[in-house]
């Protein structure tokens, strides 16, 4: 058994807030200080902080690891250490094999050059040879879908075309280790689909993949195992479903309830009949438990439930009152428990659950919590869009010309 292709061995990375010394005036004192004092890499100086603090993990051959976490949790730093752009302050990063990083697609593009020239430029930047690019050139152009514009300078491209060409080049590097950072969000729906398929292909080909994304659904789909970063540390690592649920629970935990609020949403749980869940299949039943606490007396409270898709379109909205449940009046210290049952006739995607406390007759909103939870829905058939209408094909007959009811008369 050979060593795993990616190993992080108690890695620390230190960064500095604010400006580095930018001119000689700041440099000379810093240099003398550095010469006079012994260096302590483990000690933090003024304005310094740990971007990564004792991070250790391994990725096995052919494994796809998802990396999730809030902004500033240290995901990008992990990627930069992986790709060799930076070196850790302490600890070791060990890599085996050719690495390709889809970190910023089109980073190497020069706007004055044509698409063709940029394919070669960007391809060599990503580590391909010119012969290799020449061989894959047609496939790249085809993937990007821009045969007609290949000899146009890329400064005339739309931003979507730019990103598509960038991804197309990057997708044709055959790496042993692929590092992907939030690039599946470029292009239109069809192109995104294509990118995801390409990633699946890379994973199937036996490459090791590290995938950083805020698109939790894509992480759940592509990566069996995930890693959750939080303030420079590993908060959780394990099966994606568990890690993603932990991530969402933490996101909820970060909500600060205004202590002055008269009444507040205090807990929201998404579950099936037995246990807390994140992943659902279309048509399954989900329960959403809502807990509300009152600080002072509030009258005629109703709970509003809202479901948004990833593009923040509201796909569904209802409330306890509109469903015929009389609003509740709470005295100080009272707790209201409300459970919604939903049949998830939804299409593929991540759906964010939002909850609101309303008083309908006074048109007053007491509290809102969005996103309070997320549900990842996988449909049972190949459909696109926010909902599943459980389509089947009822008729698919070809009526042949000449044999059909109204044959087209042959022209003489």
């Amino acid at each position, binding site marked *: 058994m050979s060593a795993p292709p990616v190993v992080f061995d108690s890695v620390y990375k230190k960064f500095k807030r604010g400006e580095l010394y930018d001119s*000689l005036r700041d440099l000379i004192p810093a240099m003398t200080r550095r010469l006079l004092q012994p260096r302590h890499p483990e000690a933090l100086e003024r304005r310094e902080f740990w971007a990564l603090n004792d991070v250790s993990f391994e990725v096995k051959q052919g494994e796809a690891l998802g990396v999730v976490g809030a902004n500033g949790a240290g995901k990008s730093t992990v990627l930069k250490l992986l*790709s060799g*752009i930076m070196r850790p302050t302490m600890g070791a990063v060990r890599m085996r094999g050719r690495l390709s990083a889809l970190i910023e697609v089109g980073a*190497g593009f*020069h706007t004055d050059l044509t698409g063709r020239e940029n394919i070669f430029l960007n391809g*060599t*930047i990503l*580590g391909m040879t*010119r012969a290799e690019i020449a061989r894959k050139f047609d496939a790249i152009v085809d993937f990007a879908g821009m045969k007609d514009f290949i000899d146009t300078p890329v400064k005339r491209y739309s931003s979507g075309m730019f990103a598509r060409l960038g991804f197309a080049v990057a997708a044709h590097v055959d790496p042993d280790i692929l590092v992907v950072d939030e690039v599946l969000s470029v292009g239109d729906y069809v192109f995104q689909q294509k990118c995801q398929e390409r990633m699946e292909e890379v994973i199937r080909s036996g490459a090791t993949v590290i995938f950083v994304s805020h698109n939790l659904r894509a992480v759940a789909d592509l990566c069996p195992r995930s890693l959750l970063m939080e303030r420079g540390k590993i908060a959780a690592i394990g099966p994606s479903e568990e890690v993603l649920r932990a991530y969402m629970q933490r996101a909820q935990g970060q909500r600060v309830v205004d202590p002055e609020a008269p009444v507040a949403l205090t807990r929201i749980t998404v579950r099936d009949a037995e246990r807390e869940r994140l992943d659902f299949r279309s048509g399954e039943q989900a329960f959403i438990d809502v807990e509300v606490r009152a600080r002072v007396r509030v009258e005629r409270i109703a709970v509003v439930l809202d479901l948004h898709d990833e593009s923040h379109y509201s796909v569904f909205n209802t409330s306890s009152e509109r469903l015929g449940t009389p609003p509740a009046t709470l005295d100080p210290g009272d707790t209201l428990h409300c459970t919604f049952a939903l049949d998830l006739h939804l299409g593929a995607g991540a759906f964010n659950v939002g909850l609101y406390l309303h008083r309908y007759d006074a048109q007053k909103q007491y509290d809102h919590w969005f996103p309070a939870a997320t549900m990842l829905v996988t449909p049972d058939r190949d459909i696109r869009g926010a909902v599943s209408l459980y389509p089947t094909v009822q008729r698919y007959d070809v009526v042949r010309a000449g044999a059909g009811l109204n044959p087209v008369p042959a022209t003489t």
Partner: protein
Amino acid sequence: MIATLRELVRRRDLLYMLALRDIRVRYKQSVMGFLWAILMPGLIVAAGILVRYGFAVSGRTVVTASEMLAVSVKSIPWAFLVGAIRFSSNSLINNTSLVTKIYMPREIFPLAATLAQITDLLVALTLLAVLLVVFHVGASWELLWVIPILLIFVLLVAGWGILLAAASLFFRDVKYIVEVFLTFAIFFTPVFYDSSLFPHYGHWLLLNPVAPLLQGLSATVVYHRAPELPWVAYSTVWALVTCIGGLALFKRLEPYFAESI
């Protein structure tokens, strides 16, 4: 050092493409296009001849055709030096998005900038060769010295380019110092004149490692004399030290590039 060179050889296609990018971009959307590669050194040569002529007039001496040609022979490598050092010392800053986003051996950026200038140098040298033939300068075995001298010259310039690229990444001050230096260095380098013009201080001028190389070029090409070998050896040591030392320092600083740029 060996590993560094091996990686450079492996990524030679990238070096080529980056140099090609620099060349293409320089002449895109300009009416004159590639003619600029000829015109720029041409202007420097013209300025040099004018200055040399001015010296002669004010000193009431006669300027010979050979002296004019010697000025041309020295001006063209000088134009290369100015361009290569200017572009390579800015090469990392101008490629910030690549330096911070994608891994590659970063010395490729100053080297590609130098390589792009070498193509301009070659174009200008070809034209110079035509000029020399037209003026019946003639040929001799001494001409073979041109190749090693130019190689040492390029090595010296590349070494400085690598050093200055790293230095200006950390301190933008370097960028301005380089500009001032490039503007005034021509007064202290025997380009438009010869170090023999100053009988007492001439050898001090040759301490500038560029000077023996430029004078060596004019000596071999125009006067068919061997260059002053001890001085050429002196420049060679400079070239090797800047190149190897520059690259070693560059590689030591490289891990800090992405977070310091």
